[in-house]
C-alpha cells in the first residue's frame, strides 16, 4: 500500500469511529476519537521539531501544558466573573475559543522561543535533557503555585464556546478538533515542502553544510521549534476543553514521553505518523486495560516488538515505504 492511500484510510477511520459511536449509542467512542485527534495535533507539532528538524525534545509537555493552562485560566476567570487583571487596565476572562486559541498559541510559542533560544545551544542527548529540565521547572512551578489549584488542577466546568456551534455536543467538538488536525497536517506538509522545510531537513542532516551555504541552522531550528511548540500548545488548549479540566499532570515528563512515543510509534517524519501512533497507543490502552489489570506489561511488550521489528513505525511497517531519516 502506498503511504498516501494509507493516510486516506486513517482519515476515514478517524471519521468513522465517532459516527459509529453515534449510531451504536456509544458516545464514549466520540470522546476517544477526540482524544486521539487532540494528541495527534500535539504529535504533529512535535514531529515538526523532532521528525523534520531532528530536535529531540523531551519537554513538549511544557507547551502542551502551557497551552492547556492558558485556556483553563482564562476560561475559569470568565466562569467565576473574576477579572484577570484590574489594574492598570481591566482584563476580563473569556470562554470564547476564537480568543482562547490565539492566546494559547502565542503564549506557548513565546515559551518555545525562550526555551529554544537556550536549548539550541546544545545538541544530541544534551538537547534532550535540557528540554526536559525546562519542562520539569514548569511542572514543579505548577504543582506548588496555589492560585490555580496547584496539584489539584483547575476545573472549568463548561467547555469554551464557538460562535454558532454547541461545543458541549461531543460530535461537534470532535469536528472542531478534526478540522484543527487537518489544518495542522496541511500546515506541516506545506512547511516541510517549502524552502524553509528544505533548510530545516538539511540542518538535521548536515548543519555544517547548511552554514556553509549561508543559512543559519540555529535560526531555522529555532523557528521550527517555536512553530512546533505553538501547535502543541494549541493541542493543550483543546485538551483542556475536552476534559473541562487541566492539572499539572499534563506538564509531567510522562506527557512529553507519550507525545514522543506517538510520533515514533506512528513513524518519524511522516505526516500522519502522530495520528497513527496516538490511535494505536490509545486503542491498545483501552483494549488491554479492559482485559487485564497488568495491561502495561503487555503494552510494553508490544512496544518493544514494534521497535525491534517495525522500523519506520507502524506506517513504515504497513506501507513498506522506506524512508531514510
Amino acid at each position, binding site marked *: 500500500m502506498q503511504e498516501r492511500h494509507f493516510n486516506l484510510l486513517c482519515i476515514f477511520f478517524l471519521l468513522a469511529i465517532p459516527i459509529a459511536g453515534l449510531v451504536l449509542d456509544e458516545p464514549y467512542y466520540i470522546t476517544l476519537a477526540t482524544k486521539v485527534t487532540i494528541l495527534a495535533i500535539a504529535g504533529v507539532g512535535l514531529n515538526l521539531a523532532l521528525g523534520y528538524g531532528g530536535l529531540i525534545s523531551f519537554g513538549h509537555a511544557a507547551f502542551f501544558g502551557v497551552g492547556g493552562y492558558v485556556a483553563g485560566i482564562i476560561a475559569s476567570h470568565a466562569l467565576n466573573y473574576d477579572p484577570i487583571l484590574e489594574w492598570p487596565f481591566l482584563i476580563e476572562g473569556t470562554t470564547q475559543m476564537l480568543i482562547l486559541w490565539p492566546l494559547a498559541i502565542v503564549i506557548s510559542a513565546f515559551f518555545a522561543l525562550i526555551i529554544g533560544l537556550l536549548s539550541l545551544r546544545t545538541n544530541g542527548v544534551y538537547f534532550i535533557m535540557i528540554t526536559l529540565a525546562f519542562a520539569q521547572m514548569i511542572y514543579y512551578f505548577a504543582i506548588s503555585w496555589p492560585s490555580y489549584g496547584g496539584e489539584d488542577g483547575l476545573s472549568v466546568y463548561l467547555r469554551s464556546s464557538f460562535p454558532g456551534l454547541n461545543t458541549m455536543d461531543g460530535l461537534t467538538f470532535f469536528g472542531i478538533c478534526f478540522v484543527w488536525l487537518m489544518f495542522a497536517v496541511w500546515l506541516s506538509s506545506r512547511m516541510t515542502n517549502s524552502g524553509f522545510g528544505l533548510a530545516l531537513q538539511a540542518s538535521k542532516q548536515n548543519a555544517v553544510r547548511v552554514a556553509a551555504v549561508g543559512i543559519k541552522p540555529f535560526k531555522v531550528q529555532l523557528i521550527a521549534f517555536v512553530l512546533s511548540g505553538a501547535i502543541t500548545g494549541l493541542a493543550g488548549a483543546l485538551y483542556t476543553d475536552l476534559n473541562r479540566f487541566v492539572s499539572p499532570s499534563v506538564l509531567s515528563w510522562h506527557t512529553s514521553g507519550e507525545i514522543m512515543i506517538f510520533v515514533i510509534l506512528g513513524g518519524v517524519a511522516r505526516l500522519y505518523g502522530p495520528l497513527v501512533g496516538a490511535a494505536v497507543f490509545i486503542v491498545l490502552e483501552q483494549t488491554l486495560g479492559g482485559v487485564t489489570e497488568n495491561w502495561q506489561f503487555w503494552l*510494553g511488550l508490544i512496544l518493544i516488538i514494534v521497535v525491534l521489528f517495525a*522500523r519506520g513505525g507502524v506506517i513504515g511497517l504497513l506501507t513498506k515505504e522506506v524512508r531514510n531519516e
Partner: protein
Amino acid sequence: MSITLFIEQVLNGLQFGFMLFLMSAGLTLVFGVMGLINLAHGSFYMIGAFAAAAIASWTGSFWLGLLASLMAAAIAGALVEMVVIRRLYKRDHLDQVLATFALILLFSEATRWLFGAFPLYLDVPAILSGSLTLPMGIVYSKYRLFIIIVGILIAIGLFLLISKTRLGVRIRAGESDREMIAALGVNISKLYTIVFALGAALAGLAGALIGSIQSVEVGMGEPVLILAFVVIVIGGIGSIKGALIGALLVGLTDTLGRFLLPALFGAFLDPASATSIGSAIASMLIYILMAAVLIYRPSGLYGKMA
C-alpha cells in the same frame, strides 16, 4: 542557623550525591561505551531493592540482601542486554528511547505481579542503625555515613577499574573507537554485556541501599532515573569523573536548597509563604542548575565537545 546543622546538611547532600553517583555511573558508562540512552536504568534500581527486600526477609540478613541486589540487577541487566538492548546500538536515539520506555512498563508490571501493589519492608541492619556523634557534636546517622563510605569505595573502585585493568582499557577503547577494538580481537558483544550488567548491578545496589531507608515500591526508579540523567548531563556524558562531580553537585544543591531557600525567603516574607515559595523554588533548583550548566557548557562539565 548553627554551624553543626549546616555541616550535617552538607553531609546529607554528600550522601544523596553518592547515591546518585551509583545510579549515574552505569548510565554514563553505557552511554559512553555503547551510545545507548537507557530509560530502563531505573528499573534495575527497583529490581535491586525488591531482590534485597525479598532475600533479606527470607534469610533475615541485610548483607545477603545487598548481595542479592547486586546479583539480581546484574543478571537482569545481562539478560535484557542480550535479548533486547543489543539490537538497539545501531538504532538512533529515538528507537532507544521508545524501547527502553517499554522496558520500564514491562519491569514495573512484572514486579507488581510478583510482589503485589503494596510497598515491601527492608530495614537497615542492627549494626548500622541509630546514629553516632561526630566531632563538633554533630549527631549523624550511621547508615547514611555507611552509604557515603560505600559511595567513596565504589568511586575509587571504578576509577581503578577503568584506569588499571584490562577491562578498563577495553572500555576506554570502546568509547573512542569501536571498530578498533573489534579489530584487536576483543569480543565486543561480550564486553557490552559486561558493561551493561556492571551498570545495572551498581543501580541495583543503590536501590537496595536506598530502599532500606526509603521505601521499596513499584515505580521507585523513575524519579531517580530523571535525577541520574540530570547528573550525567551536568557531568558530561560518558565521563565517570563527570558523573561523580555532577552527582555531588546535584546532591548538595538539592539538599542545601531545600534547607536554605525557605530560610532565605523567611528574611522578608511571612513564614507560611516563605516556606511555600522557598520550597517551590527548591524543587526547581536542580533543573535550574542543569540548564545553567548546559547554557554555559553545552557538553556538560567534563563532556567531550561535540
